[in-house]
């Protein structure tokens, strides 16, 4: 029961990817998770990475801001 997730910043992104998949007739083999904001996405990312059964985690964020210090230990794996 491996799990795959795509984390997005908000509702708009969620819809974009949903329709992109639909348009190209790609089966939904992962769950799109609306993190309701970049801050929440970054704050919860270390915990998301500790999810049980996690197989793949994709992240889509806007490249529209300068770097900000990320709170806590934001693991990359």
């Amino acid at each position: 029961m491996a799990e795959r997730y795509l984390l997005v910043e908000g509702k708009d992104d969620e819809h974009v990817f949903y329709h992109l998949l639909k348009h190209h007739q790609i089966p939904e083999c992962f769950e799109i998770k609306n993190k309701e904001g970049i801050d929440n996405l970054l704050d919860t990312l270390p915990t998301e990475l500790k999810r049980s059964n996690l197989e793949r985690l994709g992240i889509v964020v806007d490249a529209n801001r300068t770097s900000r210090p990320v709170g806590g230990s934001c693991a990359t794996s």
Partner: protein
Amino acid sequence: MMTRPLVLDSLEIHRFRVFRHLQIDRLKQVNLIVGKNNVGKTCLLEALLLYANRGSLLTMRMVLESRDEAKRLLTSSEGDAKGRSIRYLFHGRGDLEDQHEPVQIGPIGSPPDMLSIGLIWFRQQLDQHGRQQWQRIPPEDYDAGGLLLPGLSIALGAQPVLSYPLHIDIPDLDRVVQLKKPRQISSIFVPANGLGREQVNLLWDKIALTDLERDVLASLHIIASEVERVNLVGSQEGDRERIPMAKITDFDDPLPLRSLGEGMNRLFGVVLALVNARDGMLLIDEIDSGLHYSAQPDLWRLIFQVARRLNVQVFATTHSWDCVQAFQQAAQEDGQGDGLLISLRERKDQKGQGVAVLFDERELGIVTREQIEVR
């Protein structure tokens, strides 16, 4: 209030049953353990229990019996070592002859506190008075031939605790295994199907007419506020074994606690064990068993409060998401940082290599809010 040191602030297990190796870097006052079937949740509680009671044979027997593995734990004949069920205590369950390394359980980086349970061998020999004696055989003589009987050698750090052959006729075994052991820690294990009736009687007698009765009564109020008093009463005259009975508002006669639902019985058992584990460890398997989800946050609130007051380190297991949520809610309200969620997993590339993924209270908040699966 001064914070007292925890019984265990970390844990390392080697070669015990399902765990070839498991390391948990930190522990808190109240620890909830989650994970898939067969990942070793109950096994972790059993390891903690053995650590606390310094390798009690009674506990080993209980551990084996609970999985129907206790057949021929104590034997009457030498040789035929393959059938000896003590091998089930060791990781891999291999032949006894291959168990060269002891089970080890204890805090990380503290060798004097590491409990080890090793397999040793005995041979029957005559002493100078012509009596049969069990003689421990040094490892270099294991291959010397002759029939040998397996036994256990228990040590705490470098300090030997006990060693004995697993023979049915060792006359003092029952007495020996109940001896007060060095720095033994009081501990109570509450199985998923509840405490035995005998143990309930024993634990109740230790707290009857003390203020601790109030905590037990408070646990019953979680479900039924109309319980006025609770006591253990023989169901017939002259009964030695008594059952928990409750006095309910507006009822003249007391009612058996069980008649008020399995949840009442579970609360009674868990909190009775909790108040009896002062300065020690409470181990609860499937804590939510028989409990409606709505009762669980209050139970956890009570556990956090009483555990800190009586300095009890609590370890509980669950499969339920409701239970994780209730634990999170109570831990957050408690606000002392005393809660820890331990998600047990097995490394995919290394069988028997346990991994403990830890979630403190802040992360636990994220887990429940974002519905992140940790079980």
